[in-house]
């Protein structure tokens, strides 16, 4: 179960634990369920609780970015650990996804 908060058009989701290929599948399904709501335009992924992450998370973020960009929305990430930044930067993710303080 994802912990999230919806306020106007903004959906903030707190990701936690280990993000790998296997653990991301149910997260993706649940996120997409939440994003089915057409009122949601902006997705904020709060990464503070993420204890491990590999490149699988890049695909997750890019996939959601594509979905939201189609409806004129955006994705941003917040509270990323230096390691998370390093992996996201490798993929040039911050060119399409805003990093919030």
């Amino acid at each position, binding site marked *: 179960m994802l912990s999230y908060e919806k306020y106007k058009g903004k959906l903030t989701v707190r990701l936690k634990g280990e993000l*790998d290929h296997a653990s991301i*599948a149910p997260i993706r399904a649940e996120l997409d369920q939440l994003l089915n709501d057409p009122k949601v335009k902006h997705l904020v992924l709060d990464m503070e609780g993420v204890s491990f*992450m590999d*490149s*699988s998370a890049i695909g997750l973020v*890019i996939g959601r970015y594509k979905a939201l960009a189609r409806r004129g929305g955006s994705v941003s990430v917040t509270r990323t650990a230096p390691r998370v930044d390093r*992996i996201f930067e490798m993929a040039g993710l911050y060119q399409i996804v805003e990093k919030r303080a």
Partner: protein
Amino acid sequence: MKIKNEMRLDFPAAGKNESFARLVISAFVLPLNPTLEELADVKTAVSEAVTNAIVHGYADAPGTVRLHAVLYEDDTLKVDVIDNGRGIEDIALARTPFFTTCAEDERSGMGFTVMESFMDEVSVQSKPGRGTTVTLVKRLRACETESARRA
């Protein structure tokens, strides 16, 4: 080079074993007192290689993944991640950033790039239809040796 420790682990190519493989490799290098950074580097690289074996090598079909880790006297860690899956046709292409054979599955194509950036050496041996071995090498800072020298 003299071997300090060695382990082999065979496990089914199932997603849940990605985290298991990370735990095992952590436990294997822990006696060396690696930095948290080094430990995370090794875990991330192993996670990428094991995921590749499951997703690409076996394409989510049943199979066995082998983790073979060797710790040498100079605190160099070598990890082989071995599958007997479908193999890679073009290794250079597979290692190119953003290259992926399953874009529809939201794979980022960054697995090898991540491995290369977190390890000192990454090599790949593969034969189409026979399987793939990814070899990851990292020289650990060896805090243990350092403190022994001071003592």
